[in-house]
């Protein structure tokens, strides 16, 4: 067994020995993946797993290094990028990816991706 394989086993034992917690956070992440385009909030997610908002928030951050809200934003931005690459209009992209309004979507997109949705779409079209 290589040094790396030994380390994998060691880290698994130290960090990932609580199967119940893992099942909870993985289920929450999968739920976000499947419903990112709808209305999601911490109460709904916590209710799903019969746990408290605070406990869920703490667990999700412990295992993924992000809050559910941060993860949801990343997921929505990924979906938006895919739509924009496919040539979808900005407003349609906004709603398809689960954002509320085109203006808040554009502001968030620019702050996270570095360019506006329209500029991103132009570059993606040009790169084809």
């Amino acid at each position, binding site marked *: 067994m290589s*040094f*790396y394989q030994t380390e*994998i086993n060691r880290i698994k034992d130290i*960090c*990932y020995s609580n199967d119940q917690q*893992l099942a909870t956070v*993985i289920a929450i992440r999968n739920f976000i993946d499947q419903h990112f385009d709808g209305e999601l909030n911490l109460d709904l997610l916590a209710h799903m797993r019969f746990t408290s908002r605070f406990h869920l928030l703490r667990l999700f951050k412990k*295992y*993924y290094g992000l809050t559910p809200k941060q993860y949801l934003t990343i997921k929505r931005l990924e979906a938006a990028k895919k739509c924009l690459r496919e040539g979808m209009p900005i407003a349609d992209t906004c709603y398809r990816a689960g954002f509320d309004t085109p203006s808040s979507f554009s502001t968030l997109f620019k702050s996270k991706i570095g360019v506006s949705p329209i500029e991103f779409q132009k570059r993606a079209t040009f790169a084809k």
Partner: protein
Amino acid sequence: MKVKIVSIPVLDQDNALDFYTNKLGFVKKHDVPLSEKNRWLTVVDKEEQEGTEVLLEPSPENFEPSRTYQKALFDAGIPYTQFNVDDVQKEYDRLLKLGVVFSVKPTAMGTVKIAVFNDTCGNNIQIVEML
């Protein structure tokens, strides 16, 4: 500052280009001669060609400490870097059929599943799927 390039040391750039494009599925972005046998050679994700480039850097051939470091990591089974995939098992099956050799088979590790393969250029590379 922006992250535009990450580099991977490779023993042979021709072999690296073949492996990273024909086996892994990246596409060549830049290929600029820098000297008789060295090139500025980058590949990118096929679906995100405007994204971060991977520089296939011939440092082990040109700088002995780089070769020593690369070999030490390889011998310990430690991945030089990692790439994200949607499905580790599917990618493992696909690469296995192409003759790629794995040192770590698909293994669940907490909130991720990983596998590690030999890139034939002197490195172990890890693929990761978020669970």
